[in-house]
């Protein structure tokens, strides 16, 4: 042991966070030691409060302070339309568009056998029973455009099509406001493949 035990412990706890290695943990720990006591207490309290108060929404698995999240409890939203995302943070991105008035479903990741993640490890069964119970008419698959996200979307699409529910996928295409000549070849190629009649 190199440091006094409380610091050692703080470093060890910080190093367990994702994206934080031993060096960063050390830097953060020494920063925390140097700040006014009040600031350190605020941080500790914020961590505990967030952890205590935030839970998964019982219907869509978004993060929420209540049993039902703000979207699921909003009666003005269209419950026949469900947008499926990998993580809760993706909801924020879609909400920012202001274009979507349906509900969400958070899978908790994407299918990836090499990481030991299959449909059983995701909230796929919950989605299926929700579709049956809530009379869902269309499911928008908004998983990431990675290979794993694509496979997840295809897997779910096969599953719900057999239930007679419409499955759609987000289009991939050009960023708005950019010049065509600056678009990268892969994006432009995809946009060409997915072109529409006007």
């Amino acid at each position, binding site marked *: 042991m190199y440091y006094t035990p409380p610091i050692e412990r703080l470093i060890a706890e910080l190093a367990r966070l994702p994206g934080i290695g031993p060096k960063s943990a050390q830097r953060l720990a020494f920063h925390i030691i140097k700040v006014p006591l009040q600031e350190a207490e605020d941080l500790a309290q914020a961590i505990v409060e967030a952890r205590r108060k935030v839970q998964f929404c019982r219907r869509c698995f978004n993060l929420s302070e209540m049993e039902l999240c703000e979207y699921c409890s909003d009666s003005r939203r269209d419950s026949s339309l469900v947008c499926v995302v990998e993580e809760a943070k993706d909801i924020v991105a879609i909400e920012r568009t202001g274009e979507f008035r349906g509900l969400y479903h958070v899978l908790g990741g994407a299918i990836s056998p090499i990481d030991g993640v299959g449909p059983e490890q995701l909230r796929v069964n919950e989605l299926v029973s929700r579709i049956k119970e809530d009379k869902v008419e269309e499911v928008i698959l908004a998983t990431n455009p990675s290979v794993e996200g694509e496979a997840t979307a*295809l*897997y779910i699409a096969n599953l719900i099509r057999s239930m007679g529910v419409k499955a759609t996928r987000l289009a991939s295409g050009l960023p708005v406001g950019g010049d065509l000549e600056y678009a990268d070849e892969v994006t432009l190629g995809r946009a060409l493949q997915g072109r529409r009649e006007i």
Partner: protein
Amino acid sequence: MIVEEIKICDFRNYVEEKVSFKRGVNVIYGENGQGKTNLLEAIFYALTSQSFRKAQNSDLVREGAERGIVLAEFKGVMGVKRIARQVEGDGNTRTKVDGKEGVYRCKNVVCFTQEDLLIVKGEPQRRRDFVDAIMCQLDRVYENEISRYRKALHQRNELLKMIRRGEAQERELDAWEEILAESGENIVAGRKKILSAIEEVTDRLIKSVDESDLQIRYYPTADNLNTLREKLKRNRQKEIARGLTLIGPHRDEMVFVLNGRNLRTKGSQGQQRMTVILLKLCTADLLERYLGERGVVILDDFSSELDEESTTRIVQLLKKEEQAIVTTNRNRLGDFRGEGWFISVQEGRVSYGL
């Protein structure tokens, strides 16, 4: 594009040396083990940040030195560029482009080493890699497709093993097979396109050296989305037992046919070597069409095993290049008939002339 000068410091067997090159054919000669290939490697490394040998970065640093440095000055349509690369003993690297810290990878360089003979002599994988590497340079969409296919293949193989162990269900394969079939179709189409271009250009080059005739035959395991999807589905049980995907572009074969005979099994050493060198010159042609400028051609010891006549013919072709930099043993110098810029290498020191 022309490499005009390189400076090397503590790189391989070189302590400190400055070497200038000329337009046209540059011949690096000397006895074995003097540093001919090391000099080529320094040029290639300066341009691409990679070695053409299976070398770790730390192998490039001269034994006993802390770090190696290569500086290259070359001239192309975009003007003069200076690349400096530094390799530390622990393998860390730094690059400066025209004096500023940055990243640089020149695409416009074609290199032949003994290892490349495996394109003709070796397993099908070598031919696929050769063709894919060219296509990836010419087409970013193809490059993306290859990486997508590899990822999906890796995932499907893992899933096959999980199904074998009873940890996953067979219907989970559908999604991966859909991606493999779609991506596989694009890869096969891309390979057909590039192979017909390679065949055309290389056949023309071969006809300019002798009366031979080259064909490239491509045998995809499945050549469209539907066949690939069906074959994958039909072979599932076998593949679950093996834990491996056995069908798809990663199993395709390409055969070089010289004068009606399979070059891999029936060609002579000389024919094989000649064809690989011409395939490299063909690569330079295809890159030129895409990049709009002729690249540098680097050949390491191309003439061993080749008779004098074939060597002379290749030298004739090299003279048409904007710049070719080759190494040769002292006793094969006659092949060049005194035409070119001659660089003699002896124990990591350089001098010019014959």
